[in-house]
Structures are given as structure tokens and as C-alpha cells.
């Protein structure tokens, strides 16, 4: 059995069709079907030929939904992205929270939970405060009443609210939880919602910030920072409570931010300071 092909030759019906390689299908007729069909059916437009030319001609229209990505391909892409992010993180040297907890980064051993071991940190903080608040040095002559030597505290608030409190001595002055009232210690770790302090009795206490009012002290006069060569066996430095100091109240409900975030944060005025 045979048929007449385009080139007018006769070909067997069972022979393979000629392949079309990289050839576009071209309409040879003067009245191709699809353009004429679209133009005839776009009856709402006043100029169907213009509508066809602007919206249909030359455009690729999907006649069917595109093929879905296979699940395995998706899983592969996700794995690849995860590996890349882990690699980037590892290169940056950042530890995740679980990894930190597993390695005990924020845990103090029993022999490390000693108040005197953190006094140098506290002294460092006093030096930091002296620089931050631009405190004046202690006068050589006795001024008599330390209250008279009190600097203006108005400018201190904005600096203190963005300051780092690691090393400060905080005391709970008021709290909805009466068990917390009176707790005092050096801040060894400040998180978004709590202070971890070491008390004078060598106890590590976690004090939640919400529903508590804290009190901390800054020195009245500038305190020299610890020199790197000072040995631990030298005379123990006094804490801020044993030298002339200024006390500030800190409202925990308005302070629930991480110390790193506080630096760039704008604090809004709150209507009430009730616990």
C-alpha cells in the first residue's frame, strides 16, 4: 500500500515518517487556520486583527499544565540547599542553640560557680561604665557629701538602656514573685527574658525579667579598668556597692530584649510601669 507524499513521490504507508529536525512548522497556505479562527471568534473587540497581533501572535501559550517536578528532584534540591547553608554556617563558625546546649557552652561547672571569680568581670564592667558615662575621676580632696558630687543623670539613661550588663551587679527590688525579692548577684549571662547571676553565696540563679523591677549601681567616680598584667593574687577589688555609687531602677517588663538587639533599638514610651 502506498500514499502520495509532498514531493509527489509514492511512499509505502508502513515506512517511517521523515524527521523534522530544528525546523519550525511553517504555514504555507494564504489562509492559515488558527489566526483566521481566532480573529473570527474575537467578536467583542472592534479590531480583531489588532487583538490577534498584540495578544496572540508570537506568544507561547501552554495548552496543558506544565509537567510537575518530581518529588525526588525536589528532595535533592532541598538537600543541596541545606548542605550549602550548613557549609556556610560552619565556615562562619556559628553554633546552633542545641549544639551549644549539648556542648555545655552556657553551663558553669561547680568549681567555676564562685562569686570571686567574676569580680574581675565586674571590675571590667565598672571601667566600661566609666568610659560610657564619661565619669569624672575621684577628687583628691574629700568633698564631704557625695550627693553634691552627683553628675547629671539625665543624659545617662539613653546610654544605659543600650549598654551591656554582663558584669553588672543587679538586685531584685520588687517582683510579683516574692521569692525573687532581694536576690542579688553579678550578671554572667543576659538573655532576652532573663538574667543569670552569681550570688555572693556562690549560687547561679536565673531571674526572669518580666514582672520584676531591678536595681543596679554605677560608680560615682571613674574606675580604672583592669590591666591585663594584674594577677589574680593581687588584692581583691571592691564591688560597686562598696564604693560611692549611683543606683538606677530597671523595669524588667520594658527590658525584654537581647543585649545585642538593644543597641540599635528605639524604645517607645510606655504608659504604665506597674508590674
Amino acid at each position, binding site marked *: 500500500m502506498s500514499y502520495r507524499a509532498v514531493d509527489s513521490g509514492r511512499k509505502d504507508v508502513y515506512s517511517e515518517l521523515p524527521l523534522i529536525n530544528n525546523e519550525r512548522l511553517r504555514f504555507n497556505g494564504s489562509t492559515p487556520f488558527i489566526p483566521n479562527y481566532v480573529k473570527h471568534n474575537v467578536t467583542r473587540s472592534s479590531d480583531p486583527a489588532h487583538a490577534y497581533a498584540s495578544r496572540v501572535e508570537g506568544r507561547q501559550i501552554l495548552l496543558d499544565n506544565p509537567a510537575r517536578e518530581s518529588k525526588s528532584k525536589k528532595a535533592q534540591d532541598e538537600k543541596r540547599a541545606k548542605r550549602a547553608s550548613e557549609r556556610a554556617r560552619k565556615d562562619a563558625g556559628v553554633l546552633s542553640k542545641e549544639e551549644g546546649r549539648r556542648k555545655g557552652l552556657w553551663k558553669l561547672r561547680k568549681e567555676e560557680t564562685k562569686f570571686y571569680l567574676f569580680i574581675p568581670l565586674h571590675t571590667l564592667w565598672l571601667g566600661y561604665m566609666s568610659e560610657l558615662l564619661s565619669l569624672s575621676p575621684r577628687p583628691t580632696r574629700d568633698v564631704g557629701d557625695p550627693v553634691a558630687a552627683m553628675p547629671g543623670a539625665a543624659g545617662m539613661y539613653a546610654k544605659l538602656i543600650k549598654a551591656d550588663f554582663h558584669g553588672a551587679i543587679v538586685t531584685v*527590688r*520588687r*517582683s*510579683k514573685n*516574692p*521569692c*525573687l*525579692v*532581694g536576690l542579688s548577684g553579678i550578671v554572667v549571662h543576659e538573655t532576652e527574658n532573663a538574667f543569670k547571676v552569681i550570688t555572693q553565696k556562690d549560687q547561679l540563679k536565673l531571674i526572669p525579667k518580666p514582672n520584676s523591677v531591678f536595681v543596679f549601681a554605677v560608680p560615682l567616680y571613674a574606675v580604672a579598668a583592669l590591666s591585663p598584667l594584674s594577677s589574680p593574687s593581687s588584692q581583691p577589688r571592691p564591688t560597686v556597692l562598696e564604693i560611692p555609687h549611683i543606683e538606677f531602677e530597671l523595669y524588667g517588663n520594658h527590658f525584654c530584649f537581647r543585649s545585642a538587639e538593644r543597641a540599635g533599638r528605639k524604645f517607645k514610651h510606655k504608659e504604665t510601669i506597674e*508590674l
Partner: protein
Amino acid sequence: MPSQGNTRTVVTTGSTPTQSTSSSQAGVDKLHTLASSRPFTRQEGSSLPGVDVVFPACAALEEALVQLRASFSYWRCECGLGDFLAFAKSYVNENALESDIIALGLAGPVNDDVWCVDSRGILTAVVGKETYEVLGLVGEPLPWKEHADEHVIRISLRASRRQAEGFKACHAYGSKEADAILRWDTKRGPWRIVYYYSGTDNPPLKGIRSELKQSIRKRDNVHIPNLEDASTLVRHGRTDEETDAWGEGMSSLFEWIGMAGLGSPRISANDRCDPYIAVYAPPEPSYIGNLTCMRWSGLIPSAFVQEIIDQILSPNLASQGPFIAATAQCIGTSPVSYLLPDTSRTPPLRLPREDAGDTWSFVYARKDGERWWALAESVGKYDKRWG
């Protein structure tokens, strides 16, 4: 008894026939321990009386009660709570729930914090929100929504805490508690304290000593309830109607007792009050006679109240007078007004207020060797004694 507004009243009755039985003895025992369950009697600084005893005029009864010489005196001072507790600790029994001192700290002008030391030697303080957040002592919040910010703190004035169930709610008076009280004194200032103690020496705290005042008033031609058939005091009714009738009878009887104690002119036989102002009818049946009212005022210790009750119940006065009634008002601003028979249990919570009601009144009638008694106890709102 039908409640009036937020006041709840419980009436207990009993009788003691010539041959006493265990149940009748239990009833009389309740009267004998009535005073010890009320550590604070009298409302300091107000015109309300302490203990009133009324009875139809009888010379023997009057003489017997006058002989109760009030050798009790109480003290008033102004000092810090820490200083007072240092003095009071020496009068507290370390091994038993007993104390020879009772005291009441009055509210100041700034806030309504009050405290008391009761006859068990336990300091009970009711403090507001601001004080509680600063004090640092764990307390129990009051169970009423309007007063949920106020807390009750209990501290035993003994150095060590007992292991009894009720004492789990108490702090022992240690260094932490002493520091907290010192902080409170520093912030608040001195307290106005009224106290009674059984010592004879002058206390080291500078204070003013006051004696219990006794007064007698006699009234002629007043309506007096006729309790000849005193058995009606004890409820016999089985039906609801009989019970209601008994309740109304009791209500009118105790109303008369209260008005007699206050010296109200309404019980006078010649009273012609405008019915638009007051309408009062004495309890029926009643007769017209003479009445004697004795009153003791001051911070009355429970030991003296018990002496009065014991004198009333004394068999020596068995044939004197048809009946005798006593009424006492507890101090409204005291955090503790009632102690349970088992003193190791925590007393019921109440809100200290000037107008807090906690009153007991009892009437004791005798005839032909038989005795009947009825006791009415009434508490107001914000008192968890009966739920």
C-alpha cells in the same frame, strides 16, 4: 436563719437537763470554748461595745457579775513591727500553740496593711499589692475577685517551724523574715499597736496602759421577752413551717437582745415612734419589766470573756433570773477573728475592714433546774468561715 444581704448567721441551740448526757455536755462545752475561739474582742477606736450582758433586773446576778473585776489591762504603743516582735517572742510558747500575748497593728493613713498576733503566737498580716511585691515573703491571695491583689502572710514567732499540717502555710521567724520586716518598717514607719499580755512587768516599749471599762445601765418599763417556755429555744419543729416559725422567733429574740445591749429606745414600753421612721414590735410573748445591761469595753482578752461566760453558766446562779444574754463583737480590722477548735489548722480567711461583721450572741434561760441556751454567730461578707 434567713440571711440579710451578705450576712450569714448560724444559730446553735442546746439544753442541759438535770441529768446531763454526752450530747448536752458537748453543747455546753461549745459555750465553754466560745471565748478561746475569738482571740480579739472589741473594736478599738469606734463606739461599738465589746461585751454586753443583758438580763431582767436581778440583784444577785448583778452582784455576781460586778464582782468580775476587770483586772485585765491592755497597752497601746507606737513602734516598729520588728521591735514589737522582739518583745513578743518571749511570751510565745516554743513547744505548743499558745501565747500569752495578743496584739493588733492598726492600718495607717497611707495604706490598709494590718497585722495581728493571735493567741497561738502566729503573726498574720494582710498586705496590699505594693507591700507584697516589696516584702519578699510568700503569702496566700485572698479568694475574692475584688481583693485578689491582697495577700495573707503568716509567720510563726517560733524559731523553728512545726511539722503539723496547718503550719505548712507559715514561715518561721528567721533572718529572712526579720530582714523583710525591717525593710517594711523602714518604708512604712512606726505602727500603732494595741496589745495585751499576761506579764505583770511594765513592757520595755513605751506605751499607754488602759484598763477595761465596766459600765451598768438600768432601764425601767421595757418590753422583755417571756422565755418561761424556754424549751421553744431548742428547735423541735419537723415541718418546714415549724422551722420557719422557729427561725423568725429566734431572729426577733436576738434582735431584741442586740437592741437591749445598744440601749435602743424602741424596746421601751412608752416608745411612740413615728412609724415612718421605725417600725418595731418586740418578740411575742413579752411582758413589761426592768432591765439591766452591763458592758465591758476595751481590748478584751478571751480569758476574761470566758470568765463572764463561766459566771453566767455557773450553777450557783441557777435560780437567779429567767434568762441572761451576752453579745460580743469581734474586731473588724483584725486579719484573724475565729480560731478553729484544732488550732494547728489555718483559720478561715477574711478581709479586714472597719465595718466587717463578726458577732456572737447567746441567751441562757433557766426554769425548774433545766437550762436552755441558744447561740447565734454572724459573719459578714468577705469571710470564708462558712464558705
